[in-house]
């Protein structure tokens, strides 16, 4: 039974839509995080002086501290964005796909 259900879900255009939309969203966010994180690691390794500059003339706070604090917050905001969209929009779509596959069962 399961296999027939999976077959019907796969054939449903909404399933393709779900996979494409959620997949694209997840990968875009992942690439943002990976690029920023490894970019940051590269700057630490190759150009530490960049991060050592003060954020303003005479300030003791460096660019590095500001960038990191930003990354902590920004990465968390990205996770919040993903959870929000996945738990509403994508889950509604998922439920529709499953429901329609059940209808095909009868």
């Amino acid at each position, binding site marked *: 039974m399961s296999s027939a259900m999976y077959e019907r879900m796969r054939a449903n255009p909404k399933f393709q839509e779900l996979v494409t939309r959620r997949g694209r969203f997840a990968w875009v966010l992942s690439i943002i995080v990976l690029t920023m994180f490894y970019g940051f690691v590269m700057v630490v390794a190759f150009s530490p002086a960049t991060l050592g500059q003060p954020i303003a003339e005479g300030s003791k706070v460096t660019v590095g*501290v500001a960038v990191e604090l930003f990354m902590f917050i920004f990465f*968390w905001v990205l996770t919040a964005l993903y959870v929000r969209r996945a738990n509403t929009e994508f889950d509604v779509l998922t439920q529709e796909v499953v429901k329609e596959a059940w209808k095909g069962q009868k």
Partner: protein
Amino acid sequence: MMRHLITATGLLGFASLVFAADAVGVTEKQATNWHAIIMFCIFVALTMGITYWAASRTKSTADFYTAGGGITGFQNGLAIAGDYMSAATLLGLTAMVYLQGYDGYIYMMCFFAGWPIILFLMAERLRNLGKFTFSDITAYRLDQGKVRTMAAVSSLTVVCFYLIAQMVGAGQLIKLLFGLEYKVAIFAVGILMMVYVTFGGMVATTWVQIIKAGMLLFGGTLVMFLAMSEFGFSFTNLLDKAMSVHSLGDKLMQPGSFLADPVTAISLGLGLMFGTAGLPHILMRFFTVSDAKEARKSVLYASGFVAYFFNVIFLMGLTGILIVGQNPEFFEGGDIAGKLIGGGNMVAMHLAKAVGGNMLLGFLAAVAFATILAVVSGLALAGASAISHDIYARVIKKGQASEAAEIRVSKIATVCLGFVAIVLGIAFEKQNIAFMVGLAFGVAAAANFPVLILSMYWKGLTTRGALWAGYGGLVSAVVFVVLSKSVWVDVFGFAAAPFPYTQPALFAMPIAFLLAFIFSKSDNSVRAGQEKEAFEDQYVRAQTGFGAAAAANH
């Protein structure tokens, strides 16, 4: 201690120092700290009460392994954060910021950055495909017997290395924080862990972790708040004063020696990011929630708590520079140029005492010890489930074992792991175990993670490819660590290490992926064809969660 390690390990060894912080080196016994002991006893009494309650709710295998899927996203988020924030996070990272300033902050970012990736690429598929252990996913369409055996071997390897580090850490910490004997800690942790896990299963293990995480967040926040009040809650003011007294001076907030070498930097980043995504006790937490929705929320809360706490630690380390570093009371012989009483890892504890007196010190010390206990319990449960669910129920009994028998085996396995942990804890007391946690992360990143991610994303993965990747990753991670300085020179005493880097991930992970690719592509057996076909159904289930193990029995 930290200071000695820094001079000893030098530039390239910095990454291993970081793991050394997790392992906690040999410490000196301090005066008996009754506040801490009493508060820890209260914690134990409370968690024992919970275990008693949990025992009445632990009847089926689903209850035992995954708390019946009845943990909410928020609770699970706290528990995951608790699993991730060990005693070393509190003590080692505070000490690192205290000594190295900004470098400690960079390191925390490396520890954090894996969480968003786990959410985007893994969380929902893990929940939709898995039931009790992560081998449920890797073995979904592959040869159950072989793949589960392989996953159990690498899981147990990770669990054992991690257990040794935690047990030795517990023994060293009890001398420092409670002023008790090393062996007292080993037996206390070993026995309490057996009680939590065998009687209360995942329900008790999760609640122990949640309570501890709550205490850790509360204690850290309180210390940070009291310490910052001395600087009028002004970060600029704090930095001004800290830079005027710290030996790094104006360089305090600049990248220092840490990650000066790009190969080590990337390797460490990969190891921490993907090692986290391959730790069996963390992966298991994804199966304790009811569905993918809650699994996603778990990561959202967990990463929020971790990010918050890292920033608290950053402030604790910086305020410690002034409050602890300038107070002769905390130095041996009252000389602030000398050694901190109890060693470098004691910054967080001294800070608690300075801002909150003996009560706060006792509380934080009890939390640090409770942390080890909670992490060890999670590890033991993950190890026991690899033995009972994967090896016993699926490989030996081929899925024909009764639930009662499976639970019995996992309880016996827990008790055995408890004794193994006690024996290893005592055996490794005087050993240099700085490499153990690094090794655990290395094996998790190179053996568990590649097979897990490929089984979810790559249709072409076959049993043969998975086995080569799993065993290949395991062997290469271990070999690279053994040939690196932290084992070859520091443990075996050879003059020079054949492998020049301290982190195996950058080298061992590609080997695992390459082996998976080569041996899957060249696999033209009938079975391989069926496995590739079975990916289609697996894919639909991974995406929709249809057919996933539901919140059973609740």
